[in-house]
């Protein structure tokens, strides 16, 4: 590789700095405002967290609505992720390792479902949920989220299963392991990066979902975090710094999860799209 001139090198680093400011400023600004008071924001337009007060965080954790919503979001995210992982692992296993009539059709349906965006179906699902009496329940949202995350998980895991050498499973079976034993003891450990990736993406998708939570669970007891934040704003008042404190609290677990699992997530996404 040829050596770059000093000037070119400087331009390169300058570009990196500009990109990073663009990417990170909104996040910094959110945290900064969450430590300010509403009135001082109007009096002192500054990007720095000049007041450094904790009162927004205190107000959040003292609010019953906030605690309920946090619990709802955690419950829905963890239950859906666990069940969704089981369903996706089984489905991806079925679609790659086993052979049976109609397998390709099942595979195609999964991909179409994966590509179908949620905004297409919220109207009929709202009607159906009302009829089944599962709107304004946690179980209702869990079921509906399952229908989003299972196609996503299956699609991504198919990529991981396909990368395994087929003979590996056959070798295990010759040694006398049953199909399910081979899945549990041989295949699952090998696709564990895929499982981590799907787990994180699934939990994130449930935690972030807004439209269905808004349409189906508007009652205070069943609101998830994003809906609770929406309801902070009333016709006469927008508590800006409080909203930013809620937002920071909602974002931190996801950001941590993402950076712990970054390697797996990136691998998962790339296995899905690049290798197809």
């Amino acid at each position, binding site marked *: 590789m040829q050596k770059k001139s000093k000037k070119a090198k400087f331009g*390169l680093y300058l570009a*990196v700095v500009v*990109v*990073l400011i*663009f*990417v*990170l400023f*909104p*996040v910094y*600004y*959110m945290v900064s405002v969450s430590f300010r008071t509403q009135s001082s924001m109007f009096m002192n*337009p*500054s990007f720095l967290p000049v007041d450094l007060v904790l009162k927004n965080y205190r107000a959040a954790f003292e609010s019953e609505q906030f605690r309920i919503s946090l619990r709802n979001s955690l419950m829905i995210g963890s239950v859906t992720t666990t069940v969704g992982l*089981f*369903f996706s692992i*089984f*489905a991806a296993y*079925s679609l790659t390792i*086993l052979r*049976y009539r109609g*397998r390709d059709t*099942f595979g195609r*349906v*999964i*991909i179409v*479902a994966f*590509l*179908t*965006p949620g*905004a*297409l*179906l*919220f*109207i*009929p*699902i709202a*009607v159906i949920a009302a009829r089944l009496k599962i709107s304004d329940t946690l179980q209702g949202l869990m079921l*509906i989220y*399952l*229908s989003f995350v*299972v*196609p996503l998980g299956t699609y991504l895991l198919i990529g991981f299963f396909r990368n395994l050498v087929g003979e590996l499973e056959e070798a295990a079976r010759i040694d006398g392991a049953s*199909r399910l034993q081979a899945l549990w003891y041989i295949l699952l450990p090998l696709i564990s990066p895929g499982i981590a990736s799907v787990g994180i993406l699934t939990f994130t998708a449930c935690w*972030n979902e*807004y*439209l269905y939570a808004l349409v189906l669970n508007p009652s205070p007891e069943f609101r998830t*975090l994003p809906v609770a*934040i*929406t309801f902070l704003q009333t016709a006469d008042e927008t508590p800006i710094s409080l909203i930013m404190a809620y*937002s920071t609290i909602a*974002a931190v677990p*996801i950001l941590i999860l*993402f*950076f712990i699992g*970054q390697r797996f997530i*990136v691998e998962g996404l*790339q296995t899905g*799209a*690049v290798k*197809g």
Partner: protein
Amino acid sequence: MFTGNTKKNRSRVKLQDSLLGYATIFPATFVLIGFFGYPLFYEVYASFTNKTVGEAGNWVGLANYSYLIHDPTFRTASLNTIIYVTCVQSGKFLLGLSVALLLQQQIKGRNIWRALVLVPYALPGFVAYAVWRLIYNPDVGALNIFLMQIGVIDSPIAFLSNPEWAMPSVILATIWKGFPFWTIMFLAALQSVPKELHEAAATDGCNAVQRFRNVSLPGIRPVILIVFMISTITTINSFEAIWLTTGGGPGSATTILPIFAYKSLTAFQIGQSAAAALALVPVLFLLVFFVMKRLNKDK
């Protein structure tokens, strides 16, 4: 005797495989029939009725669709969807590719920068758009403060409630949230282009631009296609990006089709909102068709 035995054995294994196959695909199928297949079917049916909340409604044929075609708001929403998606996708592509090329260079701390660029993608959408709404705020928002301090403007601009600024502002926020996904994908694809090809091209006297056009670009074309199609499907349906910033306003300046459908639903017009949601299906169908063709080819 011996061969007969293995034959029997083999067909038994085959049967077992089939049974296990159906058993393991069943949970996923069950969920998808209930919350994908049936709702889709029901939505198509409802779009031909005048159903409202609480009332069954009657068959009205194509009345909802012809009503929509003549509804100026629906037309605006369709046009807005096209503008919004085109701009957002071009922006994500350009920014995603440029940043990928930048972070592919040999610079210090490259892995850290690559991780940090992912932040917008990792940030929950409802958080990201709440922050952008604040950034655009005319009284206390960072963008107005910044522009006034450097003297570009004299008085604050109400970015989200000004009919001319609302759409570009929402587009910028959506690009910010979405471009890192393209960057990750492009980085992976660029890495899969063999280094030797670049070196060979360099010794043949190609400059950086020529090398990009003739070596990198063909190598990442399949990824560009699939990322473009998947990302277009999600962008057409960005509900929260708009609902949480402008709510579709001012007037209907930023109303795209999912917002239109949501507003019809909150007006209890189920038949009409179903028809509005389905208006996207032809485009989605084309995109899905191409993605599937692409995926099958790669197999």
